[in-house]
């Protein structure tokens, strides 16, 4: 008995194609309106629970450090703003990369929910390389640790691509499963008595990894390294944006990826190896996310505890970043900045607790993120606005 060939490539239009139609209609207005609506809805929640939304949002904005750009800021305020802005940019780095991990897959008609797992696997392997091989020259050590993160992320995501190519398995299901496998492996691997738990005799009871060697730490170029200044990872993330754009728009691979994204059947018919594309694209996505994990680790975290693995939600923001950014390079950058600002602005460290409780604000951030994804999922607003415009035009013609 042989297995009948599954309908791997449904004749149905892919998510990417459907979204592209919506996006062409909406342009840049829809994301902006979406964000505004999400913030206003969040403001209502704040208001209904008896707080002042305007004070809250302005305190959050102060926490982001974006006010550093205001020329009228006093010298003292500018020092604080610089510290905050460094935080925001530190968080922007992984958000750009996990955003790209989602965006690149989207352009191929794949939905990569596995950014979280790919990021975690990247963290695990780069902390391993970063804390072993003491005595290497700094540059070599950093490159090796980053490559370890990228490669492991690529392999992890590649599993989902391979299963899609070989068995036609839906990548949404496999990436979700791979996320949770990565989380539990991560929890295990730094646990007491596990392979990557620290070998410091004073910390035998602490489920945390070894600290990475000084030679593996990314240099800080703005601010005090002792105060978590901004590391050079942000430039690597910006370079990744350029790579993403070039790869997508200026290479054969990118052309094929976009073709498969719009219509896999047509792409197959015109001689593109669709299956090979699935594997390759997922691997590249995983490399982006793994790079994000490696940069976080080498740039400011320096060690991982089992607790971090379970609670980190940075990589999940990648989905919102990519969707809001319309799966483009510039859009990903802007929405990564937005969400990084939100995360930093609502953090315990940056938000003034006398104005609004940071714990509340953190959850407000999740709410706003959820609303953004919900609204972007349909672009109801776009359709509504387009109808409105069409109506007005029709009225203008008749008048």
């Amino acid at each position, binding site marked *: 008995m042989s297995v009948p060939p599954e309908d791997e490539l449904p004749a149905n239009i892919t998510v990417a194609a459907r*979204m592209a139609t919506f996006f062409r209609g909406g342009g840049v207005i829809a994301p902006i309106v979406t964000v505004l609506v999400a913030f206003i809805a969040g403001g209502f929640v704040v208001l209904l629970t008896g707080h002042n939304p305007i004070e809250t949002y302005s305190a959050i904005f102060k926490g982001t450090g974006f006010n550093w750009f205001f020329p009228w800021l006093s010298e003292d305020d500018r020092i604080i703003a610089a510290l905050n802005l460094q935080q925001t940019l530190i968080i922007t780095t992984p958000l750009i990369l996990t955003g790209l991990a989602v965006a690149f897959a989207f352009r191929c008609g794949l939905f990569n929910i596995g950014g979280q797992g790919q990021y975690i696997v990247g963290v695990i392997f780069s902390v391993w390389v970063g804390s072993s091989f003491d005595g290497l020259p700094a540059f070599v050590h950093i490159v090796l640790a980053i490559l370890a993160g990228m490669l492991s992320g690529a392999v992890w995501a590649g599993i989902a691509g391979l299963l899609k190519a070989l068995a036609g398995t839906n990548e*949404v*299901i496999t990436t979700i499963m791979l996320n949770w496998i990565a989380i539990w492996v991560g929890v295990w691997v730094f646990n007491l*008595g596990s392979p990557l738990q620290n070998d410091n005799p004073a910390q035998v009871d602490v489920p945390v990894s070894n600290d990475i060697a000084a030679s593996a730490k990314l240099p800080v170029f703005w601010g005090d390294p002792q105060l978590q200044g901004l590391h050079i990872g942000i430039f690597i993330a910006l370079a990744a944006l350029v790579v993403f754009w070039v790869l997508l728009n200026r290479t054969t691979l990118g052309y094929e990826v976009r073709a498969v994204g719009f219509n896999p059947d047509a792409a197959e018919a015109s001689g593109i190896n669709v299956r090979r594309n699935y594997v390759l694209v997922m691997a590249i996505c995983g490399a982006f996310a793994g790079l994000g994990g490696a940069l976080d680790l080498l740039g400011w975290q320096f060690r991982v505890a089992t607790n971090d693995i379970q609670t980190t939600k940075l990589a999940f923001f990648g989905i919102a970043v990519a969707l809001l950014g319309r799966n483009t390079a510039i859009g990903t950058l802007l929405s990564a900045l937005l969400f990084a600002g939100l995360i930093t602005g609502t953090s315990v460290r940056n938000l003034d607790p006398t104005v609004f409780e940071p714990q509340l604000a953190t959850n407000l951030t*999740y709410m706003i993120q959820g609303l953004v994804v919900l609204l972007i*999922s349909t672009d109801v607003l776009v359709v509504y606005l387009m109808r409105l415009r069409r109506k007005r035009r029709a009225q203008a013609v008749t008048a």
Partner: protein
Amino acid sequence: MTAKRVGWAGVALGFLAFFVAVPPLTVRSPLVVIVLAVLAMAAGSYAIAGGERRLGWSAIVAGLVGLAGGYAATQSGVANLDRVVVWGALGAATLRYATPLIFGALGGLFSERSGVINIGLEGMMLMGAFFGAWGADLTSSWILGLLIAIAAGAVFGALHALFAVTFRADQIVSGTALNLLAVGITGYLFVEVYGDLGTPDDLPQVPNVSLPIDWLPLLGDVFGELNLLVWLALGAVLVTWVFMFRTPMGLRLRSAGENPLAAETAGLNVVRTRYFAVMTSGGLAAMGGAFLSIGFLHTFTQEMTAGRGFIALAALIFGRWRPGLALTATLLFGFGSALAGRLPVFSPSGAVLFQALPYVLTLIAVTGLIGRSIPPLALGRPLPRS
């Protein structure tokens, strides 16, 4: 001897290889385990050669698992084995761990059978967990708490339906959005209402059902003292099966998921059917969440569902969108968790790895190694615009 029978025999032998090595049999010789496991794999190879590929591979996998588990058991002390493998306690714990998964999987079944992907199960479960606790606290009644939880889940389901059915959004994206939203909403309300103190200690609880069957061996330990919601979950499986496969309503719901256009042509209101299905889905998933907060753990903590919604989804896929098979899958996953709860006797950290088991099994299942899971035909596709 057909290849099929040999294949099934192989699967059974694989399980036997593990079973002989643990109490009450506790065979100490690894040779017995190895022989049984090899026989299982041989039977699997025979079945594959005879054309039963999936069954054969299942037998080989069962043989490998039996070999690993059985061999590990023969190498460890009898005292440890006796502490870990207490079938009565394991059985009860399995049901406890499986309950939220059963509710979640049944919820997913309703939604997905009607053609709407429900990645948002986790969020609906979390809503149920919080609103169950909050509602029970406000009204001082677990019944009202449970009802409020169901209502909250249904509202979330309606939101999913609004976007996925009416606005024709991508169902995976809107489901993901619901998960994020649920974390935000429940977290915000929890901090706002309870702050640093957490839920009060006198939170009303769903009661346990004590059956007078203490004297029965094994069954008495497993079923004697279970939470009411555990029984409700088991009952819900039966009700779901009857509804889905033995009533006209169920047939209509399934037709909306298989061929919505034909159903629409035949006079069915597909949109309304899908709304009903997704809201039921939310209510059921929320019951699973409420079990966690007011049935099992007696408190609410932020993000307490911790991926159980996704395991429920995995169980649904593993169980090929069928109530009985999904129940089997949840029991399997529940057994894994129950075993993991007792394994720290051997290795405190290694037991953690067991938590990854449901996901690995699902990964194997969806790739078609052990029987292909075929989803409802129109899953994920909105009704074409007329």
